[in-house]
C-alpha cells in the first residue's frame, strides 16, 4: 500500500488490514509521522510528537501480529490524544506552560483502555489552554489552524485533535468536551465528534475543567470509528465518582439498523436563532436526506435553551476557578492572560448568580427531557457558523454583529448542561470549501440511537470522502 494511503485509512480499515497481515503497524505509523512532518509546522496540531516511542510501539504490535497473539480491537492503530489525558512517562500539559513539566507516573482511564486495546500513540495534541476556550489560540504552543483553510481556526478546545484527524496525521483522537470542545472542532474540521452521556467514559486521569460538565469523546473520520472508540472507552470505573455503572451495549450493532420510523425532533428555538445561511441550507438538506431514509421529522420546543449560554458561562468559570484556585495564588503569571483573567472572573462570580444559573440549568434539563419523550433524537446544526478567521472577534449574522465565541458554542453547550449524548457528523461544505456539521443528540445513554442516525446519514452521503489536501490539489 502507498504510505500516503495508509494515513488516510479509517481506524476500522487499518485494524482489519493489520489483523489480516496486509498492513504493518510500522508502515501506518510511519505514514502518519510523514504527514505530521509535512503539515504540522503550519497547522500546529501537535504539542509533542513521540516518534521514537510510537515506532517502538508499532514494532511491538507488528511482532505480536506475526506471533499470532490475541489482538485488541485497535491493535496497531496510530492515534494521538488531546494533551489532557494522563499517560505514563509522557509530558501532559493541558496546553499550559504551568504544567510543562508534568509527567504522570500512571495511565489515566482513557489511555489505559486504549493501550489495552492495542493503540499506538503518536503524541499529544494542541488545545486551548486548560480547555477554557473555543479557538485553540494557544499562547504557549502556537495558534492551531484549520487544514481546510489555514487562515481559519480549527475550533476548540480540542482543536489539535480536529486538525490532526482531518489532515490524516493520525487515524483518530480523543478530546474533551465541557461546552462543545469535541463537537465544535469536529464540525469546523469536517470530522465526526461524539460527546457521550456524562459518566459514560471515566474521567480518572483526565485534567479537569468543569467537574459537572466534563466529558471525553472520540474524534474520528467516520461514525463507525466513533462507535469503535466509544466501545473501547465506555464502562464503569470506580476511580471516577461520576462514572456510570450501566452496562455498555454493542455500539457496532446499532450501525446495522435502518432508521425507518425513527422520530427526529427539530428544536424550533434553535432554528429561529441567527444561523449562517450556508449552514442552514446544508442542515435542512441533511434533514431531508434523513426523511428520505425513513426518519420522521417533527418540530419540538425547548424554550429555555435560549437561556442556556447565559447560565453556562458562570457555571463553567466558577467550576474552573475552583480547580485552579491554588495555582492562581502562587503561579498566576504562568497562565496566558486570556485564561488567567477568565479564571479570576470565576472567582469573582456572585453566589446569587451561580445559584440562578443552576436553577436555569434545571429548566434546560427538563425541556430537553420533555422533548425526548416524543422523539428518539434531536437534530440541528452543530455550530451556527463555519470556521471563522484566526483572530476574528465578531461575525455578521442576519445583519447584526455577533461575538464569535458566543456563535461557536451556543448550540453545543445545552447538552453539557444536561449531560446528554450528542454527535457531530459532516453534512456539507460552504462555497469556499469549509466543512459544516450536523448535530444529533439523544436521551441519557442513547449513544446507540444517535450513532445509528449519524451512520445512516453518513452512509447515504459522501462528505467523508473529501479531505483537505485533495481540495487544495483541485484548487491549485
Amino acid at each position, binding site marked *: 500500500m502507498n504510505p500516503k494511503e495508509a494515513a488516510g485509512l479509517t481506524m476500522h480499515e487499518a485494524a482489519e488490514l493489520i489483523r489480516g497481515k496486509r498492513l504493518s503497524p510500522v508502515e501506518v505509523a510511519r505514514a502518519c509521522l510523514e504527514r505530521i512532518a509535512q503539515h504540522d509546522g503550519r497547522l500546529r496540531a501537535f504539542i509533542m510528537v513521540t516518534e521514537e516511542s510510537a515506532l517502538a510501539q508499532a514494532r511491538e504490535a507488528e511482532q505480536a501480529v506475526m506471533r499470532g497473539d490475541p489482538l485488541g480491537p485497535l491493535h496497531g492503530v496510530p492515534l494521538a490524544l488531546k494533551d489532557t489525558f494522563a499517560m505514563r512517562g509522557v509530558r501532559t500539559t493541558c496546553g499550559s506552560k504551568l504544567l510543562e513539566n508534568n509527567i504522570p507516573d500512571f495511565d489515566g482511564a482513557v489511555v489505559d483502555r486504549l493501550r489495552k486495546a492495542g493503540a499506538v500513540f503518536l503524541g499529544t495534541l494542541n488545545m486551548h489552554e486548560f480547555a477554557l476556550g473555543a479557538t485553540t489560540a494557544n499562547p504557549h504552543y502556537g495558534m492551531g489552524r484549520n487544514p481546510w483553510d489555514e487562515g481559519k481556526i480549527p475550533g476548540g478546545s480540542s482543536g489539535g485533535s480536529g486538525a490532526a484527524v482531518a489532515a490524516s496525521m493520525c487515524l483518530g483522537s480523543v478530546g474533551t468536551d465541557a461546552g462543545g470542545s469535541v463537537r465544535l472542532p469536529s464540525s469546523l474540521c469536517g470530522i465526526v465528534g461524539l460527546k457521550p452521556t456524562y459518566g459514560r467514559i471515566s474521567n480518572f486521569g483526565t485534567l479537569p475543567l468543569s467537574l459537572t460538565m466534563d466529558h471525553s469523546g472520540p474524534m474520528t473520520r467516520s461514525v463507525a470509528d466513533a462507535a469503535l472508540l466509544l466501545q473501547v472507552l465506555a464502562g464503569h470505573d470506580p476511580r471516577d465518582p461520576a462514572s456510570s455503572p450501566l452496562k455498555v451495549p454493542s455500539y457496532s450493532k446499532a450501525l446495522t439498523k435502518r432508521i425507518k420510523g425513527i422520530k427526529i425532533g427539530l428544536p424550533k428555538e434553535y432554528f429561529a436563532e441567527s444561523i449562517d445561511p450556508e449552514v442552514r441550507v446544508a442542515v435542512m438538506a441533511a434533514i431531508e436526506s434523513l426523511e428520505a431514509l425513513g426518519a420522521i421529522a417533527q418540530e419540538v420546543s425547548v424554550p429555555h435553551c435560549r437561556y442556556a449560554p*447565559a447560565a453556562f458561562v458562570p457555571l463553567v468559570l466558577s467550576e474552573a476557578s475552583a480547580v485552579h484556585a491554588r495555582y492562581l495564588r502562587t503561579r498566576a503569571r504562568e497562565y496566558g492572560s486570556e485564561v488567567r483573567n477568565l479564571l479570576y472572573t470565576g472567582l469573582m462570580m456572585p453566589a446569587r448568580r451561580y445559584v440562578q444559573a443552576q436553577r*436555569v440549568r434545571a429548566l434546560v434539563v427538563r425541556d430537553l427531557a420533555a422533548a425526548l419523550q416524543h422523539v428518539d433524537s434531536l437534530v440541528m446544526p452543530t455550530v451556527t457558523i463555519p470556521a471563522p478567521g484566526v483572530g476574528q472577534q465578531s461575525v455578521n449574522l442576519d445583519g447584526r454583529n455577533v461575538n464569535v465565541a458566543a456563535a461557536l458554542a451556543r448550540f453545543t453547550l445545552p447538552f453539557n448542561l444536561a449531560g446528554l449524548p450528542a454527535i457531530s457528523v459532516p453534512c456539507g461544505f460552504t462555497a469556499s470549501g469549509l466543512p459544516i456539521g450536523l448535530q444529533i443528540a439523544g436521551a441519557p445513554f442513547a449513544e446507540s440511537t444517535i450513532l445509528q442516525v449519524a451512520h445512516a446519514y453518513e452512509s447515504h452521503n459522501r462528505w467523508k470522502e473529501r479531505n483537505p489536501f485533495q481540495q487544495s490539489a483541485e484548487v491549485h
Partner: protein
Amino acid sequence: MPDIGRDEVKATLAAMDIAISDDDATAVSRILAEILADMRKLDELASEEGEPSPGFAVEVRR
C-alpha cells in the same frame, strides 16, 4: 446589581491571597460586567420553577 470595578476586583481577590495587576483587574471587571449583563435575561425567569440541580448527573445515571 452594579458593576464590580477594578479596585473591588483587586480587594476581593486580595482577600483570597491573590495579588492581581491593575491591567488584569480592569480586564476582569470588564468580563464580569459582560457576563452579568447577559445574565440579566435570566431574571425574566424569576417567577418560574427551577430547582437548583445539585447533580443532573445523578438524574442521568439513574
